[in-house]
């Protein structure tokens, strides 16, 4: 990403009733960037968004928009747009008047308002719905009105607070690609709050992983996924299973990983963890291959364990594999070998490039 910094947070912190919600958040959002704030509920991502919007005042630190501190600027003068989780449309206004709201507040003339509202409704493919009231629209349509209402004012930054979480899975995917297209078309800077890692990875230029403190890691989706800098990021992204080589003898499979170095014909890449030390190797379940043959194919690191369960789930099968210490991991494979059935011994492995060093 190149271009000017549109929005920055400098050491922003917030404490509610003695509990630290966010701590010393530093963030620079570039012009035209799509950035996600990702984390579990309670990680402070919504508070961060509310601080940017001006609904919440940070206890410490400052918010800069276009290089200017806006801590003392009320929300209605920040020139931001926002799409809300529950749509938050004005129920007493028509679709047209909902979208026109921000323009009317800016005292534009009626002809300009009509033209820009039509353009915005066109952008979200809702032309012809002008006279409908929100309750006469479906959930997806309501959210598109919300998007048009926020975009029509050409905000400095568009804030999106889990806008798709109330939609069903199919509609959510459709809206994701639509959102991506709108971002490309308008070039609006967007900050997207979500707890859905797939959504964050799919949509964003960069992802900020949060966990009730400073930002854990701010990186491209690839970087977050492949090179987690903290244990939290490693665990939170790419769940449900992360095959982890332990650091010591207490975990039998960790020894095998090390043994695998000899047998598998390759070593885990020598990344360094946050502390600067090479940590234990790990691999995401999505990158794991299983092989019921006698040997793992080179050049892979592999482990040999036993399948305890196999469940068909449509596009993938869930293969549950037991490790020595009665821990199990679940591997999702789109096309598992036919003999990968409960009781079968398997090698677990993955291309050397997919192994990572865990912090």
């Amino acid at each position: 990403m190149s271009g000017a910094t549109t929005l920055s947070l400098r050491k922003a912190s917030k404490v509610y009733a003695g509990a630290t919600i966010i701590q010393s958040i530093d963030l620079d959002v570039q012009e035209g960037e799509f950035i996600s704030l990702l984390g579990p509920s309670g990680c402070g991502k919504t508070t961060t968004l509310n601080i940017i919007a001006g609904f919440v005042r940070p206890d410490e630190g400052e918010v800069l928009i276009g290089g200017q501190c806006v801590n003392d600027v009320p929300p209605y003068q920040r020139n931001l747009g926002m799409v809300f989780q529950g749509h938050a449309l004005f129920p007493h206004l028509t679709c047209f008047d909902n979208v026109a709201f921000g323009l009317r507040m800016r005292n534009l003339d009626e002809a300009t308002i009509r033209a820009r509202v039509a353009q915005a409704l066109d952008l979200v493919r809702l032309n012809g719905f002008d006279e409908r009231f929100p309750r006469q629209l479906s959930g997806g349509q309501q959210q598109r009105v919300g998007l048009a209402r926020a975009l029509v004012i050409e905000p400095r930054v568009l804030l999106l607070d889990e806008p798709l979480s109330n939609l069903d899975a199919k509609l959510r995917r459709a809206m994701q690609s639509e959102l991506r297209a709108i971002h490309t078309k308008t070039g609006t800077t967007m900050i997207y709050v979500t707890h859905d890692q797939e959504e964050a990875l799919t949509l964003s230029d960069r992802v900020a992983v949060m966990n009730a403190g400073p930002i854990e890691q701010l990186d491209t989706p690839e970087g977050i996924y492949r090179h987690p800098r903290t244990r939290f990021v490693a665990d939170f992204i790419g769940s449900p299973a992360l095959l982890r080589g332990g650091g010591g003898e207490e975990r039998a499979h960790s020894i095998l990983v090390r043994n695998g170095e000899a047998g598998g014909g390759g070593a885990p890449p020598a990344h360094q963890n946050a502390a600067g030390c090479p940590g234990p190797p790990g691999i995401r379940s999505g990158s794991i291959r299983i092989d019921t043959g006698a040997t793992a194919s080179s050049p892979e690191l592999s482990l040999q364990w036993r399948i305890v369960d196999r469940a068909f789930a449509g596009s993938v099968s869930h293969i549950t594999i037991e490790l020595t210490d009665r821990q199990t991991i679940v591997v999702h494979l789109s096309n598992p070998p036919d003999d990968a059935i409960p009781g079968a011994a398997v090698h677990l492995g993955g291309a050397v490039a997919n192994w990572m060093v865990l912090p």
Partner: protein
Amino acid sequence: MNGRSPLTLVLPATLWLAVAWGWPLVLVLSMSFRNMDPMTFELSGFTLKHFREVLTDSFYLDAIFRSLRIATIVTILSCVLGYPAALHIARTTSQRARAAYTLILLIPVMISLVVTAFAWILILGPSGFINRALASLHLTSEPLQFLNSEAGIIAVLVYSFGPYMIINICTALEKIDPAILRAAELHGANPRRVFARVTLPLSFPGILSGGLIVFSLSAAAFVTPYVIGGNRVKVVPLQIYNAAVTTFDWPMAATLSIVLLILSILLTTAVARLTERRFAAWLGGS
């Protein structure tokens, strides 16, 4: 559904209303069309003369207009004075403060109207609290006449029925999703415009239902005009009482009751219809 029809569920209430409310109403209605012998109290014949008298004689017409005027003023004042209070209560987050507010609101509703009215005599009387305060501040040389006046009746009615307005507005305000207010604010509305464009219109159903209650109660109020107005400010309920108890003209009392009831229903439904039309799309229906 447990298989019981909704009709059977409303049956007890329906029966009760039919016996305790419907039947007396039918009796009153039928009596308004009868002649009554003032000596024997016997009812006979069919006549429209009571209605003709009520709708032409200024003695009755004045009472009707006075009643409607008082009810209208009380409704408007309750709304204007009650709205800020409702707004404050709806924004209060402390549970303890809310409980206190609810108690304060319920006091006028719980205490008998007679007690309330006599208490207000002490406040509004020539040597009452208000007049003494005004005199000691040298704002008035003579005590103001609150008792036996419409102003006094209106003041006490606002006190007695205002809580219904506040509670209804408060309920409507609490139903507003805070995210909607945030959306308005972020998209450029300053606090004043958030209120005018979003909060006020969205609380309108509360104003409407509160207004209907306050208006009907005020138009039908008897105790307050009787005690505060000293039977000198002639409102329709007082005329009904006087006709029934003083002159024993029951058909006239019945006619006045019916006219007041019809006017009250007509006015409230007309206002409700007119204003609801604008909000029909989001208030109800599909």
